[in-house]
Structures are given as structure tokens and as C-alpha cells.
């Protein structure tokens, strides 16, 4: 009878304990699932930081939380926090935090006893902490659950935190991979668009160059008006590049046609600047070097002033093209 009664009490105790464990496990599982859902549906990876803190608070029942990320210099710097007093928090990892970041959560019953957490202990109203490492999507983070009372966290909380990290890490990794893939797709689309634009620009550039060559030819055509006499009516402006091209074409034509005189007709030259005389002098000099003569015609007053500044000895100038032609044929 006694043994039966004792067995009954033990069975009841086991049932009560099992019920309590199940209730607590259910509440913790629901909090975990809700947290994971919130993380998984965050609009971006960057937006998960405050979500992680809310999950941690819900799971551990702690009033404050912070997320610190390890920078290249090894320091842990605050990235998100539930309270302004935690903003800018920095921690330098020692043995405790190194262990935590390696995957072993730790409950701290009194912050002031841990030298590594002196910066936390110095903040008013914080006494105990749960430290959890979370390495995912290429970053190492420290999650802190914080409480104003000492000894607010137990081995049960540590186990809960370990479970949280275990399930949250793949979700964060998945979110990061999704975001990475989306970025890659966007980058590829942008690259295609740029390539198409480049091709269109190249086509336009080719057209422009072709047109420019045509214009160049039309602005200074070389006409064989008589046997041994070439006339070059210059229209528009003459820049250095055009003079170079004209000089080349003219010398080639003089040689091919065995011409003895070239007349540069400047009647259509509309832009005259201080260097025009120098440029013309360059052409005249080149023509002379192959044994031909070079006349200029249609010189207007502004051009005359520019030419006067240069050595134009030996250069025959005529008011009109007709005068120039007449002189060449004599």
C-alpha cells in the first residue's frame, strides 16, 4: 500500500514535471517560430538586426538587447540596440567573448564581475546578461540579452539561446543568399543594358566619324581645274587637324597629277583667328618642298591682317580665284 502510494506520488510528480516542461517548451517553440518568421520575412538582410533583438527579448524575457558586429580590427561595435544607452557600445573580446563567438552562449549573473564586460557594467541599470554568438552571412555578431536584475539568466536560457542560434543561422544565411542572388541578377541586367547602350553609342560614334570625314572632304575638295593646276576651295573653318589632313591630301594629289600649281581659295573661309596664317604657311611650305607653287586667292581683310604677321615671302596672293587661275596659266 505504501509503495503504491509512493509510486502514485512519483507518477503525479513526473506528470506535473512533464506538463511544465511541455508548456514551457511549447511557449519557447512558439516564440522561436514567431521569431524565425519575422527574420525570414524581413525586407532585407540589414533589416533583420532589430528583428533579431526583438526575437531575443521575446525568448529570454529580457527588457534590453543589443547586437554588436566584429569589425576588421577585431572590436565588437554596436549595430543595433533596443535602448539609446546602448548606442555606440564597443567591446573587446577576451576569453569569454571569444568562447561565445565560437558558439558557446554564456549567462552572466553579475556583469561587474566580468572584466571584458566592463563597458556594459558601467551603464546604469544593467546587472546580468546572456551572451550569444551568431555567425552568418559573412559576419560575426554578438547578441546580448540584458536585464536590470542580477542572476536573471540560467542554464535553461543558455540552452534556449543555443537553440535560437542554431535555427536562426540558416535562415539568415538563406536570406543573405537570396539577397545576393537578387543583387547578381540586377547587376547582370544592368550590365546587359550598359552593353546595349555602348553598342548604340559606338554606332553613333562611327556615323559621326564618317560624317566628319565627309565634311572634311567637302570643306576642302581638291579640284584639277586645268592641266597642272589644282584648286582647293576652303569652306568653313580650318583647325589643326583639318590642315594636317588637307596638307596630306594636297601633296598626294600634286604628286599623282604632276601638278605645278596649287591655288588655295579662301573665299569661303568664315572663321579666322590668329593662328590661321600660321596654318596656311604650313601648307604653302609643304607644297614648295615638292617643287610646286602655291597661290592663295580670295583673301579678305581679316585674313590679310593675320597673314601679315607671318613670313609670307614668295607667296602669291590674289583677290579672286579668277585672278589666281589667270596667273597660274600664264
Amino acid at each position, binding site marked *: 500500500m505504501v*509503495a503504491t502510494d509512493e509510486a502514485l506520488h512519483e507518477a503525479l510528480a513526473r506528470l506535473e514535471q512533464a506538463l511544465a516542461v511541455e508548456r514551457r517548451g511549447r511557449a519557447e517553440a512558439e516564440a522561436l517560430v514567431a521569431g524565425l518568421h519575422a527574420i525570414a520575412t524581413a525586407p532585407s538582410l540589414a533589416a533583420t538586426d532589430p528583428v533579431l533583438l526583438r526575437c531575443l527579448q521575446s525568448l529570454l524575457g529580457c527588457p534590453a538587447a543589443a547586437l554588436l558586429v566584429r569589425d576588421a580590427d577585431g572590436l565588437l561595435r554596436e549595430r543595433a540596440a533596443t535602448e539609446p544607452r546602448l548606442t555606440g557600445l564597443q567591446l573587446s573580446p577576451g576569453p569569454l567573448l571569444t568562447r561565445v563567438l565560437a558558439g558557446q552562449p554564456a549567462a552572466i549573473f553579475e556583469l561587474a564581475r566580468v572584466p571584458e564586460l566592463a563597458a556594459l557594467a558601467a551603464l546604469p541599470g544593467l546587472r546580468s546578461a546572456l551572451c550569444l554568438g551568431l555567425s552568418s552571412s559573412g559576419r560575426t555578431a554578438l547578441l546580448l540579452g540584458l536585464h536590470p536584475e542580477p542572476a536573471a539568466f540560467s542554464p535553461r536560457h543558455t540552452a534556449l539561446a543555443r537553440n535560437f542560434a542554431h535555427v536562426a543561422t540558416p535562415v539568415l544565411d538563406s536570406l543573405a543568399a537570396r539577397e545576393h542572388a537578387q543583387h547578381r541578377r540586377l547587376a547582370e541586367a544592368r550590365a546587359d543594358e550598359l552593353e546595349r547602350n555602348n553598342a548604340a553609342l559606338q554606332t553613333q560614334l562611327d556615323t559621326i566619324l564618317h560624317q566628319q570625314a565627309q565634311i572634311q572632304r567637302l570643306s576642302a575638295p581638291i579640284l584639277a581645274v586645268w592641266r597642272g593646276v589644282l584648286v582647293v576651295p576652303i569652306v568653313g573653318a580650318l583647325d589643326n587637324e583639318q590642315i594636317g589632313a588637307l596638307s596630306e591630301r594636297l601633296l598626294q594629289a600634286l604628286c599623282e597629277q604632276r601638278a605645278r600649281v596649287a591655288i588655295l581659295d579662301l573665299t569661303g573661309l568664315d572663321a579666322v583667328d590668329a593662328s590661321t596664317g600660321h596654318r596656311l604657311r604650313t601648307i604653302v611650305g609643304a607644297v614648295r618642298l615638292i617643287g610646286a607653287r602655291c597661290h592663295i586667292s580670295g583673301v579678305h581683310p581679316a585674313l590679310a591682317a593675320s597673314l601679315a604677321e607671318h613670313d609670307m615671302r614668295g607667296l602669291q596672293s590674289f583677290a579672286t580665284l579668277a585672278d589666281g587661275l589667270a596667273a597660274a596659266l600664264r
Partner: protein
Amino acid sequence: MRAATAQHQDPDPARAVREAHAALVSELGGPPQWLFVQSSIHHDAEALRQALAALDAPALHGSSSCLGVMTRVGATLDGPSLALFGLRDPQGSFGVGAAPLGDEPAAAAGLALQRAIDAAGRQGEVPALVWLTAAPGHEEACIAGLEALLGPEVPIVGGSAADDAVAGGWYQLTRDATFTDAIVVSALFPSTRVVSTFQSGYTPTATHGRVTRASGRVLAEIDGRPAAAVYNEWTHGAIADALPAGGGVLGSTSLFPLGRRVGELGGVPYYRLAHPAAVRPDGAIELFADIAEGDELVLMRGDIDALLSRAGRVARDACVLADLAPDDLAGALVIFCAGCMLTVRARMDQVVAGLEQGLGGAPSSAASPSASRAASSAARTATATS
């Protein structure tokens, strides 16, 4: 993590320690990070400590136990004996601290715990398990001191250092010192899970009364009459021999502790137990737990069969609670009440067999501390798991 036990009966403590430790190291594959030692009082405390200190065991925690020791190979309850329980867990951390109980046992417990945590190199961290051994008499205060530091949820497991006749022959020891009135605490930070369970056993009877005079652990009167006389009537003469002049009654009262109702489980009340230790010449009863005037007492009752199977049931409960397969277990530490052990002393092999079955053959070491612990403080069975 690996756990192993070894015991030895050599009367020379140095030789017993050396040979038991060698067997332990062999089974563990190296020296343990944490070493728990239980010994019968035949061994001199300081000689034992010196032998243990010579070992490669930085975290050493030990105490005397009632009559002897128990491991999976059996219970040794006659003559000198000692048992070692070792944990080898290079990824874990373990520390031991101690403090004399003095006039403020709660503060001493807190100080010993802080020393243990610091010795483990885990300043400020909550351990997975607190293992304690203290001189009898202040268990409630010790638990309160530990809880004041760590909160109510951290498992605190252990028992009182004991001797064979509640005569003050107990001792506690660490690597550095031996004590007779101290608390020794281990802070365990293993790399694996730890679970613990507790059962006090016993069932209530219809016999009850109210405490009308008491002080500390001395129960002077029940319903206005000398407590010893009332208790003797309730138990139909269980302490009759001690009534005239007083004396120890631990063994004769083990099946009839006093209970105080502290709650309900599924509508069935459960009780905090207080075992009678001795009868005073003035007719008062010394208990192994604090008692207060106005408390409602119920005579509890147990039987031999229930006592014999209880340890195995508790061990099995721990495994079920943690959802552990036998292969998951690294080992177990078991506290078995000294009063209960004295009652079933001749049949302790059945207790060992029950534990072996409940633990699936995992290494276990048991202590038999004094029977006096308030149920709130008391011996919870710790199961270390791999």
C-alpha cells in the same frame, strides 16, 4: 566528456588514493578535470587530502560519507573505503571553492561559490551545475546563499558531509585544505548537457499535529506535549529506547519522517520532509531541517521495497526527463540519504542494481550524506550526460 569511477578499500589512504586514481585515469584515458572524492571516516582527512593533492587533479572536491561509498561495482559499507568520480572534459571548465560556515552560512556558501567560479576561470558566468558538500546543520542557509548569487533556476545538487553516527566526525576537503565545519562548492561548466531530478519518496498518513514550540532544528512540542513522546505514539514505539535518556534515532525513524505540506501536484498534496536525528533528554527531537512554531506536521511513511527501488527510479526519471538514450550518458552522481541507507543497509546491492538498470550501465558514484536536508534544498540526483 568522459566519466569514470573507482573505489578502493585499502586502509592506507595514500595507497588507496593512488591505486583508485590510477584505475580512474586508465578508464578516462587521462587525468580528470574534476575529481569528486567520497570516503568513509576511517580515513584521516588530512592524510587523504595530501594523497589527493599529489595527484594531477586541480579541481578536487571531497567529503566523508556515512559508513562508506557506492559505485556501479557495489556499495562498501564496512571498514575503510573511498570512491573517486572523475570527469575528463578538456572543453569544459571546473572549479572548486570552500569557505568555513561560521556564523553566516549563507554568506559562506556565496563566497565558496564565487571562489569555485573564479577557480574555473569563468568569472561572473552561471555554471551548468553547482555541486556542494557542507557540514550538517545549515543546509537551508547554504542553499539560500547560493541562490542569492545565481537565482533560483540553476541546479544545485549535493549533500551534507556525514559520519557513521551523527557525532561530528565528518569532514570536507579541497586540494588546499581540510575542514570540519565548512562548505565546499564545485562550479561545473561541462561541454555537454547536465540534467538533475529529485524524489523524496514517502507517503502521508492520517496522523498529524501542530508545532507548538520549536527553535531552529529542535522540535520541542507537538500539540502542547513533548515532541518525542508524541512521535513515539504516532510511530507505535519507534523511538521508545531513546525516550528515557535521549540518543540517536536516525536509523529507527528512517521510514517515518515528518512532513509539512508545501503544495499540490495534480490535486495531490506533496510534503517537505524532516527526518528525526536524535531525542534530547528533555523530550525534544532534533531534526535534520529547520522547523517553525505553527507548522502543521504530518507523519509520513515509507517501506523497504520503496526505499530499495527509489534510487533506480530517480535515475530512470532523469534519463526520461532529458530524453536520453543509454548511450548518451557519460555518468551520474547520486545522493542517497544516509538514514535510508542505514535502514536498507543489508540490501544495498539491490539499490546498486536498480541504479545500474536505471542508468543503463553508465558510471555512477553515490554519496550517503547525513539524512537531514530540507526537501527544498536537498539531494537532487545529477546525471551528467555525454
